[in-house]
């Protein structure tokens, strides 16, 4: 979907104008985005100026497309990479972003214990243009433990579970983005842990990436 096909409602246009324009705007009616700066609507009044986008190309902040990132935290788990596909909701600042991440450094800190690799699948819903608030739901490793039977080096295992988090994402027009979120997760194991003891905080400390289109 091209940016030119996106139609902002009146509230969105006013918000955009307030954020990016220093000029007062009076909008007589629906204005098509991305119109040429060199021509004014035939029925525009000369004493009015209209805030228009400065480029004919749709911004990556408004398109559906693939983003790759690297980061630290539960989306990456816990130091890793991620592929996310932004599905832009037409005529809206909403988007749904399913993602898949893989990472290592799932460690417990126990002496002589190893670290393991994990994968995370999830989806974010975000609202905003460049500055966005997001809600994140995911399935992946949320708990790690190291076990030694008789004094040998402990083996680390991760327990998977589900998590919910809220956070923030910034995406520049160029497609560069960064994000962070914080929430709570519930592990499905290990069986020895009581259900009430399986809740754990979840944190994506930072994810930095680039949206290709």
């Amino acid at each position, binding site marked *: 979907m091209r940016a030119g096909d996106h139609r902002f409602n009146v509230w969105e246009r006013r918000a955009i104008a307030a954020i990016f324009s220093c000029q007062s705007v009076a909008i007589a009616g629906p204005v098509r985005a991305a119109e040429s700066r060199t021509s004014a609507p035939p029925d525009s009044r000369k004493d009015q100026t209209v805030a228009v986008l400065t480029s004919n190309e749709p911004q990556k902040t408004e398109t559906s497309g693939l983003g790759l990132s690297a980061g630290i935290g539960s989306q990456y788990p816990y130091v890793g990479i991620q592929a996310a596909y932004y599905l832009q909701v037409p005529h809206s600042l909403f988007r749904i972003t399913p993602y898949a991440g893989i990472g290592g450094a799932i460690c417990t800190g126990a002496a002589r*214990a190893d670290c393991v690799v994990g994968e995370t699948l999830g989806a974010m819903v975000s609202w905003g243009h460049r500055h966005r608030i997001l809600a994140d739901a995911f399935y992946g490793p949320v708990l790690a433990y190291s076990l030694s*039977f008789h004094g040998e080096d402990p083996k680390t295992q991760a327990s998977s579970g589900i998590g919910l988090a809220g956070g923030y994402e910034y995406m520049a027009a160029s497609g560069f983005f960064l994000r962070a979120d914080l929430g709570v997760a519930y592990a499905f194991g290990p*069986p*020895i*842990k*009581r259900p009430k003891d399986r809740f754990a905080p979840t944190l994506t400390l930072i994810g930095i990436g680039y949206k290709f289109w």
Partner: protein
Amino acid sequence: MASRKRAKRNIDSNALLAFVVSAAACSSECPTLEECDIRSTSCQRHTADVAACLRGRGTADPPVIVVDAEAFVQSQVDDATNNPPTQDSIDLGRGLALFGLAPPETDPSATIREYWTNVAAFFSGQTGKVTVLDRGAPLDGAGAVRLLLHELVHAMQHRELSNDYYDQHETTYDDSLVLTSLIEGEAVLYQDLATAFAYDRDPSDVEWDDIFRGFEERQWDAARQDDAPYEMASLRLPYAFGGALLNWNWRSGGNDAVRAAFTHPPASTRQLIGGTASRGVARENPNEVGNPVLPSEFEHVATRHIGAWLFDVFRDLWSSAPRTFRDFADPGFAGDVLTIFRTPASRGIVSVWRLRFDTPAKASEVFADLRTSKFSMDRRDRDLIVVAGSDGQFTTTSIEGWTTAPEQDSTDQTSPNGTGAIAPWSCPTMASAAHAAR
């Protein structure tokens, strides 16, 4: 063989169903251990159910008490102080000390402290209770419930094994170590299985051979660092080597193979140390010539058949080239008779140890290895005679002859320092048992 399949988790749109399946672990055959306060009866009941299911039989509901560890240890020391050992026990210790198998001093408190420092909990057949020594660790954590399961297995064993069984299979010190190894080995086995399932580990995926090999190596080394190897043997050998044996049995033939170990126990600690390669090796104590005849001023104190474990410790303590467990090769030790004498007049002690090997060559090897030690030694065919005296004057030439030694150990099984170390129904769990860290 008990087995358990991992619950499979789906990540499709039925995430809730996957959650329920995973949380319930509905594919297991036995209930799994759960963290709970081991002082509560519901926790004890559930843990007993886990143990019984894994064993395929058994019930137990012993009282569980938690005591302050330091206070308990001190009470044991006080008890020993108030009930001093008999002269025979003291002289038995002095005789063992000549070979480095007991501390040279007669004060039992240090030995008692060393012993109980390594104990996390124990089941007493005399009181029927499980006692947990509280050293500050959480009583509702994973470590506590695993400890409880271990002791509940002992409680089940107590109901199943009769006193006749002990009378039949516990006639010598070496026999006692073997029996203790079976008892502790079974408890270690089911503790390990319960732990594996509780942490979502399939036992068939666990590298048990490597784990027990390392465990055995560490206990082998620790035994050579102990001040009282004779006392500490009941902690060093049974968990690592008995655990390895019963674990191997279980992997080979399930619970039936574990039961078979009790029906046909190993003949000696030599079979435990040697592993599968030594399973069929017989024990041969040189009883027919085991009792040395000494001059009349020497008074008999005790006769013991202390076996391969302590022989190997002794050898490494005095060898010019002590072995690690990695270096261990069966030295061909077949059996022994240790006799201790005293001279009332001078309060001297003499220890005469007759060791038998599979072949004369094996005896010669050990003879050569110990030649630089302080002992007086003599080799006769497959036998090696090692003599030590507190005054340093007694030699093998002082022995006037040899007569038949009793097949059973001579005294009442009391250990030199009164710890009752070979009391099978005081079944402790080592404080360094399995642990998990978050």
